[in-house]
């Protein structure tokens, strides 16, 4: 626990979640409802200034002890002191969260990737469609209940027959 996570806890006491129970440098778990306010606070408050979105991803906590199953992970960085802060936003119920692509344009693609691989919807996203998997793909492969070798997609590939024998 550092001064930054303490500050977030003081500012948003109702949004903080306990767990998951593990070692971490500088991370805090929050509810996803007010994620824009929390990120805005981290970005603009004079004592925080975490204005650089290093990474945006998600984790499926299905097999770990945690408040909810899916969390969006924000890795933020303070460009002056080079400190890193990790925010975990857990979604309850509808697996939806506000988009941050208005603040950081890089998040537009990162959120598309999270939607593609985890099936988390981003409210207000300008162009939420698949980015890495094909457009007609079903399922979200980085979820823990998705098998490594797929759900039989390989078996359904069309087999092309030659029309005539080679002469």
């Amino acid at each position, binding site marked *: 626990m550092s001064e930054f996570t303490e500050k977030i806890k003081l500012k948003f006491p109702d949004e903080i979640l306990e767990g998951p129970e593990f070692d971490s440098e500088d991370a805090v778990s929050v509810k996803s409802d007010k994620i824009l306010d929390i990120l805005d606070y981290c970005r603009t408050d004079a004592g925080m200034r975490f204005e650089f979105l290093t990474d945006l991803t998600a984790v499926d906590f299905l097999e770990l002890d945690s408040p909810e199953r899916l969390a969006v992970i924000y890795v933020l960085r303070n460009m002056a002191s080079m400190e890193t802060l990790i925010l975990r936003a857990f979604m309850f119920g509808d697996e939806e969260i506000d988009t941050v692509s208005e603040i950081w344009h*890089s998040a537009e693609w990162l959120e598309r990737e999270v939607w593609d691989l985890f099936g988390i919807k981003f409210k207000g996203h300008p162009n939420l469609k698949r980015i890495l998997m094909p457009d007609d793909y079903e399922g979200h*492969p980085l979820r823990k209940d998705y098998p490594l070798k797929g759900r039989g997609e390989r078996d359904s590939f069309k087999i092309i027959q030659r029309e005539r024998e080679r002469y």
Partner: protein
Amino acid sequence: MVRVENDLQGEILELSFGPQHPATHGTLQIVMELDGEKVLNVEPHIGFLHTGFEKLAEHMSYNQFVTVTDRMNYLSPLSNNIGFSLAAEKLFGIEIPKRGQYIRVLMSELSRIADHLVSIGTAAMDLGAMTVFLYGFREREKLYDLFEWATGARLTTSYTRVGGLMADLPEDFPDAVLKWVKQFPKTIDEIEKLLNHNRIFQDRTYNIGVISKEDVIKYSLTGPVARASGINYDMRKDLPYSSYEDFEFEVPVGENGDAFDRYLVRMEEMRQSLGIVKQVLANLPDGDVNIDPDSKLTLPGKDEVYTTIEGLIHHFEVTMENRGILPPVGEIYMGTESPNGELGFYIVSNGKREPYRVRIRPPSFINYTIFKKLMKGAMFSDIVSNLGSLNIIAGELDR
């Protein structure tokens, strides 16, 4: 090509660039709307090389995944190896001996030079300067010979392990590197003579693809692309890892943020990397490259395995699936400065042999997000200047 609509200005063309096109240098597609030579809109499509590395990682042990990282940025596989191993070591909470750290610095700087040579060479080739590409590849070939000597492979190096390296350097290796270092600056000078005052190259890169300082933050850009826009941001200096704090080097920063500045930053970075390589070779400490095998994390020496029963049992204990040291339950984020920008690994571990989740922060993917903005309203011929100067590597883009 599909005709979209007709008006008095002429027809608006929808043109598909790639996925198989020599100037994309990888498998990516860009669908453009053109009004004559002017680009009205672009829509990049990616994912053609998606291989599911992050899913694969959840079914491999930490050392096995090193081989997969080779295939990410295939111009500098050693940087990926080192980035992942550093992240895993941060999770395990270990630090390898000085000699191992110095060798990692040496390898990552050599691969940075190799990456920049290809990046500059192909960018220049797309703009019509074939010679630069050939000069660059000549030096890169010598570097790849060195990599092959040390790691056993040109591309699939897999040189690092959690807790050290696959092997120490060959005995004469430092001398061979020094020999290469002595003759390399000539090539940098040659490339600069060919390009810096070249009218065609200047016309096609000056004020093309200008990225402002604000956009660097808004688009999370890193690496040479961010530095060319005047943001002094280098993980090697700002958050030193693997003993980078021991070396003296400058971080080149541009002013205008255009394609020409990105080229200049890469050229200067190669000079700085050469300086680091010289310092590593001059101060290379003696000793082990791996942490003590008694930690049960690294393998014992081969002579011990082949001649003693204790060594053999030790080897077995480390490599078998249900044995070996396990990581703590936790999460870490570790960023390293790869040639393209910040290569980060976010690892969640549940204490098992395989990581629970590995997220790769790919610099190419995030640097590519600004491409749409750069191309809007630009000329059709700017597309190769922008693609080349952003240095988009499809293997890393799609993972």
